[in-house]
């Protein structure tokens, strides 16, 4: 039992960390575009903002299990297979991008408009304002947003696990539910709770340190 659990735990951590990494990188792009093009942004543009806003909302409202099935052709094209943890990175990342985008956008939105004005008054370019003001000031909020993302990805990875990704969700369903071994169910749940607690604690530590 311990061997199966250790392997599953490592798979779950791999899926969470990997998809968080990619979704944060890719989620920054729509977040920055939406911040720039918002009505009170540096380059207001209703159409562009509207499109991104719509896309983010649409992808966020997709039930993850359906998204998982929908992106399977893409997963196969990128990874070559639709099973194993690495394959799960594709739907997990795609599912998390709009979440991350919204989280970063609202972190940016919280930055005092006066700071942006001050930066403009010193002749800063838009890029410098994003990088030296928005990003700098919003970093603690971005960190807590990423923690939130990671924790929802734990739930998503368990769903992905039932569709061939492996990890703790897979163990819980296969051994615990279908195999009637309650102890597997209990232990995987405890491991998941511990992972959530650890991620949240690390997140809180960095939030305090940064702000």
């Amino acid at each position: 039992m311990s061997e199966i659990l250790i392997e599953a735990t490592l798979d779950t951590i791999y899926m969470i960390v990997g998809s968080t990494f990619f979704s944060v990188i890719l989620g920054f792009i729509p977040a920055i575009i939406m911040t720039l093009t918002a009505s009170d942004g540096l380059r207001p543009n209703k159409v562009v903002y509207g499109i991104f806003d719509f896309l983010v909302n649409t992808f966020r409202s997709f039930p993850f299990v359906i998204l998982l099935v929908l992106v399977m052709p893409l997963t196969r094209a990128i990874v070559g297979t639709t099973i194993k943890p690495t394959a799960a990175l594709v739907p997990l990342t795609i599912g998390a991008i709009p979440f991350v985008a919204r989280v970063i956008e609202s972190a940016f939105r919280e930055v005092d408009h006066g700071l942006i004005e001050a930066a403009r008054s010193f002749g800063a370019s838009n890029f410098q304002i994003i990088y030296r003001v928005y990003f700098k000031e919003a970093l603690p909020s971005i960190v807590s947003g990423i923690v939130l993302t990671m924790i929802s990805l734990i739930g998503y990875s368990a769903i992905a696990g039932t569709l061939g990704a492996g990890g703790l969700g897979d163990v819980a369903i296969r051994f615990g539910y279908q195999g009637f071994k309650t102890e597997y169910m209990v232990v995987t749940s405890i491991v998941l709770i511990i992972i959530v607690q650890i991620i949240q604690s690390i997140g809180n530590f960095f939030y305090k340190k940064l702000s």
Partner: protein
Amino acid sequence: MIEIKNLSKNFGSLNVLDDISFEIEKGEIYGIIGQSGAGKSTLLRCINGLETFDSGSIIVDGKIINTLTKKELQHVQKEMGMVFQNFNLLSRLNVYDNVALPLQFWGQRKNSPENKEKIMNLLRLVGLEDKVNSKPAQLSGGQQQRVAIARALILDPKVLLCDEATSALDPVITKEILDLLLKINKEMGITIVVVTHQMEVIKQICTKVAFIKNGKVVTVGKPEELFVAPNPEVQAFVGESVEILPKDGVNVKLFFADENSESHLITTLARKLDIDFDICQGKLENFRGSILGSLIINIQEEDRDKVFAFLKEHHIIWEELQHE
């Protein structure tokens, strides 16, 4: 230095700025005063290109602001430091890094020896050299504004724009910040434009002032002219119309260039004309260190011509106050 010509700006049908024209000379401390919503902050933001306007022109140091490309405008903005009511410091940067930020916008390294020296010199000027590593949240409002002033000076501007820079501060701290601005104006020769609704600011530091109401310039002049013999709109703003004065007789307001001439003149008036009158109210005001006084006396109706002739003879500025 700054020339504003027929400037107008609308938000829909609302005239935020309405045909504004005035000129700010190099080395002046120019005050723009008016109530909240009068358009004065918008006007200031037009000067450094943070806001656009619909018609007219602004010329800063020979450059026409409204015809510049974005790059050219950024260079003009570099020449104009700005200080804000809410300080607008980055909360996550310490004092040093906040002051260094504009340098970084212009591609300079904040830790190069010359920049380090420059930043430390400015922090010394504003009296915060011992707070280099503090975060804004650890500083008082007055100290935060000092950091903001140092930041506004880091790019060696020719002009300092202050948008209600002392409005969030208490009177004692306001005085300290104003003294600092005076010092910057004198020692560094920087032209300063202050937007404010506080009369104290105008009286303490400004060499010239424009009074703005509903987006229009009501009057322009030296502060002493504006406040000692105010026109009705300025008077309403200043709130001096609430004076409680005798209902009969004639109330006359006299203006004096200094406190000594005042007492002297009053005794002479009584002695020479051999009349009785009441002193209702006296006030001394300090304009950039020079004292100006005003005194309201109540005379008998029959003494009116005598007194007015006497005042004229002694070259005293006066006005007869109408009964309400």
